[in-house]
C-alpha cells in the first residue's frame, strides 16, 4: 500500500501539493515513485516562470522511462529543489519530504478545490489498479 498523507492534495497525474501559506510545495506521490523505480535524473523548472494548472513543469527520469510532471496549481515558481541534481533518488526515498521538486506561489485558491484529497486519491489509485 503506498503512502498517502492526509494533509496533502493530489492530482490524477500523481502529483501532490502541500500549502504553506500561499506557496504550494509540490512533488510526485509515493505511488508514482514506486511505479518509476530508480529515479536517476530530475529536470527542474526555471525559477520565476509562470505556469498554468496542468501544464508540464518538470521531468522525472527513471532508468527505463521519462515521466512528465505537471503543475497541480497555476502560479509562479519561487523555489526548486536543487539537491535533486546530485541526489535524484531522494524522490524515491522521501517523495513527500526531501524529495519535493518545486514550490509555486499560488494566485487562485479555488484551484485547490479541484484537487483530490487523500481519500479520493486512494480510491483513484485503487480504481486504476482494478482496470489493469
Amino acid at each position, binding site marked *: 500500500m503506498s503512502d498517502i498523507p492526509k494533509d496533502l492534495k493530489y492530482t490524477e497525474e500523481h502529483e501532490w501539493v502541500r500549502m504553506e501559506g500561499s506557496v504550494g510545495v509540490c512533488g510526485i506521490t509515493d505511488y508514482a515513485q514506486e511505479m518509476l*523505480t530508480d529515479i536517476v535524473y530530475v529536470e527542474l523548472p526555471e525559477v520565476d516562470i509562470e505556469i498554468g494548472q496542468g501544464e508540464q513543469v518538470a521531468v522525472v527520469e527513471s532508468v527505463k522511462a*521519462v515521466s512528465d510532471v505537471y503543475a497541480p496549481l497555476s502560479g509562479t515558481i519561487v523555489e526548486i529543489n536543487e539537491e535533486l541534481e546530485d541526489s535524484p533518488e531522494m524522490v524515491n526515498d522521501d517523495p513527500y519530504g526531501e524529495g519535493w521538486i518545486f514550490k509555486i506561489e499560488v494566485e487562485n485558491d479555488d484551484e485547490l478545490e479541484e484537487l483530490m484529497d487523500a481519500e479520493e486519491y486512494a480510491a483513484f489509485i485503487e480504481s486504476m489498479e482494478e482496470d489493469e
Partner: protein
Amino acid sequence: MQKTVLHEEHIKLGAKMVEFSGWEMPVLYTSIIEEHNATRNRAGVFDICHMGEFIVRGEKAASLLSSLIPTDINRLEPSKAMYSCLVNETGGTVDDLFIYMRGADDYYLVVNASRRETDFAWITDHAPSSGVEIVDVSDETAKIDLQGPKSREIMETLFPDAGMDRLKRFYSLTAELDGVALMISQTGYTGELGYELYAPGSFAASLWNRLFDAGRPLGLVPVGLGARDTLRLEAGYSLYGHELSETISPVEAGLGWLVSSTDDYVGKDILTAQKKKGPPREIVCLKMIDKGIPRDGYPVARDGAEIGIITSGGFSPTFEVGIALALVTRKAVSVGDRVDVMMRGKPKAAEVVPRPVYAYNG
C-alpha cells in the same frame, strides 16, 4: 501474451511484469540498479525462455548455414559456439544469433524472441529440398542465464563433476542434474563471466530453484529485463531492432569482424564492399557530459548539424552517467569528439567514447 514456464516463479518473487515481444516477462524484481550491480559484483539469474532455438542438422546443414551467414562456418568445431547474423539481399540484418556446433552436421541456433518466426521462415525458404532438417524447438526449451563473478562457483556447486573449471568461453558441454541432461555454454549478454543453460521446459522451475539453492549463499539474485538491458548496453552489445535491423548492416553496427566467409552468402557483395570502402553509417558510443539521460530516438548533432540518432540509450549504473549507442554518418565523429544529444529540443553535451564503456570481465 505468452508466459514462460518460469512465470509462477516471477510472481512468487514479486516481480514487476511487462510485455516484451508478445511475452509477459519480469522487468525487475527489486530495482534495476540493484539487480545490475548484483550481477556485476556477485551473480544474477535471468529467465530467457522467450528466445528461440532451432536445430539445423543433416549433411547439408553446414552449407545451408554458410549460405546465410557472413562468418566462416569452419570457425566452429564440436562443442564450440559463435556469434553471427543472418543477412538479407540489401546487406541488412535479418537477426543476430548464436550458432552452436553440437557435432558433425548438427547445429543449434539461438535467436531473438522477436525474430523467431521470421528467422525460421528465412532459413527454411533458403534450404535445399533434402539433406537438412530444420526444427523449431523453442516451445520445449527453457533457457536460463547465470551471469556474474560468482557464477563459476555456483556452477561448480551444482555440477561438481562436469569440468566447469575447464569450460572455456564460447564452448559448451552437456551436464546432468537430477537425471536431466542440460546443454551449458560459457556465453552471455552481460559482459561478465557467465553461463547459458538450456533445459527441457518441464525442468525449468526445478533448475531455477536449484540455482538459487546453490547461489543464494553467494548473493545470487533474480534479474529482470531492465537490468539485462543496462548490462548489455554497458558491455556494448547490439540489440536487434536497435543497433541491427533489416536496414542496418552488421558492418554499420560495428560487427565487420563477423564478415569472414569466403563462401557465397546472401548479401556478400554489399558487406564485402562496406568492409572495403567503409559503410555509410556507423554505431558510436556516447557518454553524457551534461546531466540527462539519452534515450532511443533522440537526435545527435555536431556543430549544429544533425548527424544521426540514438539507437539505445539509458543510465549506466556502474558509471552513474547516461550512456548510449548511436547510428551516425560514418566519419562524422571520432573518439574524443563532443556531440550534442537533443533532449526534448535542448542540446546536452556528450563525448564519443570507445565501445564498450565496460570491458568484458570474464
